């Protein structure tokens, strides 16, 4: 037959379904997924948080019992011969379990032994791996002391001590800085080219998906799309535009555009707003937004993300953004405190947040090295940097959680560490990972924070009702907050932080892990708050989030490498052959420039 001539796929999934939980409350993780991956290709597995990516990878690796369907790895049935399939594949879990109290060399040698790499072959293989991952100078270092990026590279090296035929990678670049991310991808590409292995990689970075030959998009356990990335992106070709307006701020414009019928997606990108229109819908006209407005609309090439959002929004399965009412500024409920029309901060105004020569030392380690910046009222200011760049330390000092070693800092005129407790009533704080009392219900959390911020009863009740309605949490009021979906947790955390209508909002990695839709919704809210005069300080390592900021400080090794608005940062790396640099390009260029003097 003709089919026999075709190369056998390295991986074949046939109607794979999986459920967790008890029989009484089954939770569907995967529903009837059928797909395949050709040998020698890189297949990307994308989808929002909780879409079933990890479950799928674990099933392929034989770590979970296959409940229904069939999985073939290199022609072997995983359910029938798990050891046979396992011997030929490599799997790197999301948080690769390195033995942190072992050195880099000891970790590698452990895996070499466990995978039966012959000692004579190991000498060559080991040095090749160390060279490839750039770990050679750190062989004697405890792996717990490596940076996030190096840990992931070591994890990958451990998975590759014996070259597998099929490599499974579960979000290998989460928490990894952009430079290390590029290096990791270079390793993967190199392996595919030279060793011809097949890779299945899950990722939440959509730009990474574009590097794959094929992309599987999962949503709520179903396979929504399986195409190649350019084809996928082309779905919105002719529907992606860049818009700017004279006489209207970008945030206001974005908010207006997002509510315009026919516009599927509107995001801020530098000084522009990027929109995606629905199939058949014309680009929005100025007259529809506001009389007398001039819109500059340029068509731009589609991005992968445009299609991703468009697909999820039209899929109908979208749960989060669709249900929520359009966000309004927090001031709405309380009336006159809102400053909707206030122009973003006059120059002579006193800065709301000020850091001058701010320094923090931990023993010998200089975590923050004489950082200075100022944030004006109503501004969204971003601290951008990789893990360990010093942004969290700076953030914690500003919130009064950590004393500064030297330097000055002022938040609304106070040093929060020394000021009276009541001064803290001016700030709202949303911690990384949306730290809430997980055992308490949504309502109990809201009640607690309302009392914590000293709200008295008519107002307290009004604010709790506002939070339930504004964030569409009413239906979940009695739900235990630990069990909420991530997007709801994030909303609840923001609701708690806004309970007392703070003038300043501190956000630490506010959208890490949440899917693009929830991230959009979140930023629409933050934009509305900024419009009403709330000052926002945000830390992030997502380049995409940086685009939402008015101004940024790029941090590395405790120092400010550069600061300015997103466009000016990008403009620095604009060259003739790279006319449209991304934030990531700018960031990497800054890091490389900073590394130069050290290397010399």
């Amino acid at each position, binding site marked *: 037959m003709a089919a026999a001539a075709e190369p056998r796929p390295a991986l074949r999934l046939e109607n794979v379904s999986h459920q967790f939980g008890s029989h009484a409350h089954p939770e569907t993780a995967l529903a009837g997924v059928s797909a395949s991956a050709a040998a020698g290709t890189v297949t990307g597995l994308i989808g929002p948080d909780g879409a079933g990516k990890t479950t799928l990878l*674990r099933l392929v*690796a*034989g*770590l*979970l*019992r296959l409940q229904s369907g069939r999985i073939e790895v290199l022609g072997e049935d995983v359910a029938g011969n*798990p050891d046979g399939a*396992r*011997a030929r*594949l*490599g*799997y*790197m*879990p*999301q*948080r*690769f*379990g*390195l*033995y*942190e*109290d*072992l050195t880099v060399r*000891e970790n590698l*040698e*452990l*895996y*070499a*032994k*466990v*995978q*039966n790499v012959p000692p004579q072959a190991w000498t060559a293989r080991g040095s090749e791996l160390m060279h490839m991952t750039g770990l050679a100078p750190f062989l004697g270092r405890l792996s717990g002391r490596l940076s996030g990026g190096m840990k992931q590279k070591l*994890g990958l090296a*451990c*998975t590759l001590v014996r070259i597998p035929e099929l490599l499974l990678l579960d979000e290998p670049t989460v928490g990894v800085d952009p430079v290390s991310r590029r290096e990791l991808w270079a390793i993967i590409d190199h392996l595919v080219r030279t060793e011809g292995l097949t890779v299945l990689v899950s990722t939440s970075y959509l730009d990474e998906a574009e590097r794959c030959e094929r992309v599987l998009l999962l949503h709520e356990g179903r396979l929504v799309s399986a195409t190649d990335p350019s084809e996928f992106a082309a779905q919105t070709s002719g529907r992606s535009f860049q818009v700017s307006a004279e006489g209207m701020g970008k945030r206001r414009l974005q908010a207006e555009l997002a509510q315009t019928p026919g516009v599927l997606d509107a995001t801020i990108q530098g000084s522009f707003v990027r929109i995606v229109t629905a199939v058949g819908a014309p680009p929005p006209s100025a007259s529809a937004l506001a009389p007398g407005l001039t819109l500059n609309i340029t068509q731009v090439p589609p991005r992968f993300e445009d299609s991703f959002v468009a697909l999820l929004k039209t899929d109908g399965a979208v749960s989060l953004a669709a249900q929520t009412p359009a966000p309004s500024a927090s001031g709405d409920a309380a009336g006159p405190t809102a400053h909707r029309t206030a122009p973003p901060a006059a120059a002579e105004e006193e800065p709301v947040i000020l850091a001058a020569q701010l320094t923090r030392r931990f023993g010998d380690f200089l975590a923050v090295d004489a950082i200075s910046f100022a944030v004006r009222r109503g501004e969204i200011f971003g601290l951008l940097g990789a893990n360990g760049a010093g942004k969290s330390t700076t953030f914690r000092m500003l919130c009064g959680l950590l004393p500064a070693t030297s330097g000055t800092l002022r938040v609304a005129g106070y040093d929060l560490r020394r000021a009276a407790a009541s001064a803290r009533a001016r700030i709202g704080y949303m911690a990384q990972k949306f730290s809430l009392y997980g055992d308490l219900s949504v309502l109990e959390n809201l009640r607690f924070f309302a009392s914590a911020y000293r709200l008295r009863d008519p107002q307290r009740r009004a604010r709790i009702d506002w939070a339930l309605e504004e964030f569409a949490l009413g239906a979940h009021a009695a739900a235990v907050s630990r069990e909420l979906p991530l997007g709801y947790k994030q909303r609840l955390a923001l609701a708690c932080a806004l309970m007392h209508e703070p003038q300043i909002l501190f956000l630490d990695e506010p959208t890490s892990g949440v899917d693009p839709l929830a991230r959009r919704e979140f930023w629409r809210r933050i934009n509305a708050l900024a419009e009403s005069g709330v000052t926002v300080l945000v830390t992030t390592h997502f380049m995409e989030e940086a685009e939402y900021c008015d101004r940024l400080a790029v941090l590395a090794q405790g120092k400010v490498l550069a600061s300015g608005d997103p466009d000016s940062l990008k403009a620095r790396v604009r060259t003739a052959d790279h006319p449209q640099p991304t934030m990531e390009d700018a960031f990497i260029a800054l890091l490389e420039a900073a590394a130069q003097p050290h290397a010399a």
Partner: protein
Amino acid sequence: MNESLERLTGLLRKEALQILRDPSALAIAFVLPAMLLIIFGYGVTLDPHRVALAVVVEQPDAVTHSFVAQLRGTPYFTTESFSTIQSADRAFDADRVSAIVWFRSDFTRRLASRGAAPLGIIVNGVDANTARLIEGYLQQTWANWLAMRSRERGLPAGLPIDLEPRIRFNPAVRSRDYLVPGLIAIVMTLTGALLTALVIAREWERGTLEALMVTRATIREILLAKLVPYFLLGMGGMVATLVLAVWLFGVPFHGSLLVLTGVSALFLLAALGMGLLISSVARNQFVAGQIAIIVTFLPAFILSGFVFDIGSMPWPIRLLTHVVAARYFVATLQSLFLAGDIWSVILPNALALAVMAFVFLGAARLRARKRLD
């Protein structure tokens, strides 16, 4: 086979390096046992010595004097004299004395006339065990005094029976000599079950086990690589406590080291098996620690016969003690230390330990899967 050995040495090397670098493992294996041994060795003594007695003599004379002298002559008592029962009562209520010996004013007169003069003894019964021991000491002193008096006067013995008590194995009746061997069982329960349960739970928590599972290492090799180092560590803890017991606390050791090693090995296997089983149920350290303390450590303390006599417990609890591995080990240890190689004790207990080790290790092996669910 060769390949399997290769993998096993890799895993063992890793385990050894981790133990050497992780201070908490060494602390649980060596520091905690030493601390427990010292606290218990010094803090837990059941033998009252120098019990404070109030002696009330309402009318002192030669007879009362000779009895008080007899009391003072024993190592058990220190005496404090009172002239009225009221003042002695006050000292008693303030817990300054544990018992009152009360010679009423007519004591000597009744002794001389009809005999059977009542000598009042009031013991503080709050601590029932101590009270009972004090009673015993007082009775013994009294009997000795009677016998001495009879001898002095050439009369027939005070009591018609000549009691000859003999305490075998621990003639000095030092409670430390039986508590310290029992402690070794506790210490090994700690290193065996608690440490193993915590260490494997830690691998679950950190995701290292997930990464190991997709390698060629078999589940048997992974389990074996955990068993061997902690077995050695446990035996090390046993040797350390043995040395402390003999050198610091001067507990005699009458048995043979070979038998001790053998029985300890069996017990340790049972404890390790239990630890493995716990860690396969609880995949985080907090829960594993709680379960280990509740199902191994506490029972080893209370239900092993280490301090409290098993035979005197109500039957449901007595039944329960049969599944406590420490019970068999404590019985063997007490015999080995104080009596010697008594095979009629060692064999049945060793057999019970072997059965438990087999059951626990077998169950741990059956439950372990190279899967996450």
